[in-house]
């Protein structure tokens, strides 16, 4: 089962995303503060990170950059959720190395496809799990 770390400070949206992912057999850990994000990311070594761009009081891009420059997290694929249709922000997410930008409102099937694509293949196969 692919393990996803969900970094999101809006509880309602986080719960929604978590339920979709869990229905598709992802193992999801949700954290809502940047401090928890670092702790969990380092402890659990997730297969992918899903992060909110509009983090309260924290610059989403800055948080991504910090996570990406932390030893042990540099190669973890990640996707960004953007609730706003802003071309530059989506571009910035890709510039900072994001594998995908997921726009709100979310199309569930499309969302799951994208998440499967960014997770390392052997993790999402289910049957291939040793």
């Amino acid at each position, binding site marked *: 089962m692919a393990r996803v770390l969900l970094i999101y400070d809006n509880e309602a949206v986080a719960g929604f995303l978590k339920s979709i992912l869990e229905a598709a057999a992802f193992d999801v850990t949700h954290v809502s*503060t940047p*401090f928890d994000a*670092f702790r969990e990311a380092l402890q659990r070594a997730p297969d992918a990170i899903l992060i909110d761009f*509009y983090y309260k*009081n924290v*610059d*989403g*891009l800055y948080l991504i950059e*910090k996570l990406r420059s*932390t030893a042990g997290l540099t190669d973890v694929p990640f996707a960004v959720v953007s609730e706003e249709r802003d*071309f*530059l*922000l989506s*571009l*910035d997410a*890709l*510039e*900072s*190395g994001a594998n995908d930008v997921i726009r709100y409102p979310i199309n569930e099937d499309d969302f799951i496809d994208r998440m499967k694509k960014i997770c390392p293949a052997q993790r999402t196969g289910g049957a291939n799990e040793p």
Partner: protein
Amino acid sequence: MSEQATIDLARFQELKLSFFTKLSGEKVLTFDIIDQSGAVVFEAGIAIDQNEVVAKSQQGCRFFMPKVVESYGHEIVSRPAIQKLADETREIYSSVRATGAMSYEQFLQSNAHLHSIIDGLRQEDRLGGCLGLLRDMEDFDYYTYAHSANLGVLAMVLAYKLGYDKTRMRNMALAGYLHDIGKLGVQREVLSKAGRLTSDEYNQLVEHTRMGYRILDNITGPGGQKMVSDVIKGTAIFHHRKYKNMGYPFRPARERNSETFYRALPEEIRMIAICDVYDAITTSTPYRTAEEPRTGLRKILNLSNHYFILDDVLSFIKTLACTLNKGKGVLDRGDFIVLESVRSSRDNPNQKEPLYEFARIMSTNSGRPIEPNVHIFFNASDNKKIRSIEVDMRHDYTRKIVRVITNERLTERLRRHALSA
């Protein structure tokens, strides 16, 4: 000794006990703390202990921090310190940027106006010697000190090139020098910590903005009048505010729109905020290697519309790029860029919306770092190919460069698009 003799209680600022207890820890004081009778309670150079602070206050001590620079008539006691600062500013700046072919030293020496500003700062006692606060910074945290010196010079050069008058130029220079002075109130270990900060440490760091404002606001003249101009204090408190996401100090709930707030800040503060990030990116610390000026400038460009207002960034690059980057520009032939312009909204013709286009740089124009000749091939807002056009950015008043693509995956995708255009 002579400082002791000239202590005038009216000129001391009472410290709030909360600030004072924050100072305690393993930190070493960089100034004497005296009580209401003028007796030194804690000496500069010692580490104070919180229990002692509480004990002394229970004995009836009220704490005062002597003015860091004591004035006696028109004689600045610490004139050598300020003189040293002005000299070192130039030295430090050129050594920090030893890689640059054109050093700031050379630049400044070739510029009589800036020279006279430095001399003015050195000789005048107009501000009660608040520049002397930097002396404490030098002992306290050398990185912040060097960074402050850098910003003083950058701000001054920028102010000069933006055509400010002498007073405004001097204020902007001082605003640069003193923007981080509030870091004197942050524990040294926090300032130099290599790893991630804890929540408490982060909050302490954030406080350097408000602390800076307080320190500068507390500098008063002989008649008790405030000596430091608003733009200098404003820079201390607001230099970490950002355009689209508020930065800090965090906005109060009632202040809805960070963009409106940011736009209303004086140009000096907005430009120093850019210099601040630029200097951080291009200066090495024990934990981070410095970026080349070119990379620094490209990063600044890519923060426009997000951290900074695009027009400010373009003005920063137009004004400083050639100086900072050895006479060379920021963009190169072959670079992919994003252009921003404005069009009527598709949904509502009365409304404007931004239009974004992808383009590739065909050739650069010397002396015009952000106005190359470009080849526009893709409408990114509508996600469609367009018939490609060539534009000389020197003569295009509708489009502005808002991003330069550095990510390899993106570059590869754009290269394919450009080829098929």
